[in-house]
């Protein structure tokens, strides 16, 4: 009896296209991009089928190829528009929306300052409705922010590895992650916690 896995490319689409699409669409909030990456994954896998290690399942192997494609997608987004890189002290409309913009202080405004979330809302976070709103809020992040946030939370990559993958400086990573969290928190605050 053999416990080895084998490749059956003729059955890939039927078996794995839904799972691969779902994996991608959760991480990249654009249906057309997600569909294209899934198709690319099957084609790349077919070309690389001689490199398949027979100790992992077909699905695990396909996901590993797909994961590389997702990282490549975000690298391209992160390195575009070099001029559009912020310093942590940049005062622009984005930051001024959260912190007082009168030139004297950088504190939360009374309207933007986070206040406690209702416990009964936190207990419903496993619901489909919650995840729909979370996806909408993630989908509103500009792509450079989505890049750092998604790569940090989709797998167990640490921040040094993400900087290497995205080819960005650590300070740029912190700036982008800071902005991503400010925006995401506010979006959930308004749309789920109803403030």
């Amino acid at each position, binding site marked *: 009896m053999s416990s080895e896995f084998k490749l059956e490319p003729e059955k890939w689409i039927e078996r794995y296209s839904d799972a691969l699409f779902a994996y991608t669409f959760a991480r990249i909030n654009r249906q057309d991009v997600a569909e294209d990456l899934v198709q690319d994954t099957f*084609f790349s896998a077919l070309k690389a089928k001689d490199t398949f290690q027979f100790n992992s399942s077909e699905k695990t192997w396909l996901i590993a190829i797909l994961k590389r494609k997702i990282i490549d997608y975000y690298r391209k987004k992160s390195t575009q528009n070099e001029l559009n890189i912020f310093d942590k002290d940049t005062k622009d409309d984005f930051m001024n929306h959260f912190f007082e913009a009168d030139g004297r202080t950088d504190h939360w405004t009374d309207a933007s*300052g986070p206040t406690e979330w209702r416990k009964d809302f*936190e207990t419903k976070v496993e619901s489909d409705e919650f995840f729909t709103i979370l996806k909408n809020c993630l989908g509103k992040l500009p792509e450079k922010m989505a890049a750092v946030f998604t790569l940090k939370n989709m797998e167990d990559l640490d921040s040094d590895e993400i900087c290497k993958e995205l080819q960005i400086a650590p300070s740029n990573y912190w700036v982008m992650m800071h902005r991503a969290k400010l925006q995401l928190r506010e979006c959930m605050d308004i749309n789920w916690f109803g403030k």
Partner: protein
Amino acid sequence: MSLFNKIFIQCKEATYLHEKKRAGKLDAAESLGLWIHMLYCSFCRQFVKQVEFLEATAHKFYQTAEKRFHLSPTRKGEMQKAFEQELKK
């Protein structure tokens, strides 16, 4: 930045330093400044608590994606056709 300004920081800096802290890259003055700020700023304490909560739920969302989304049957059909062409090559 003067030492005074490094130790008595404002919310924008504090929420930024929280990110730097997670990467383990704070120097001693930044670390002290962040610690002092968190003692008296309830907005920033809430911020940290809430974003950590959202990261945990985002992680769960990614891990459970498979049961939430499906490829459209039309697109799956097209993919199947294109792939069969490739298999014949």
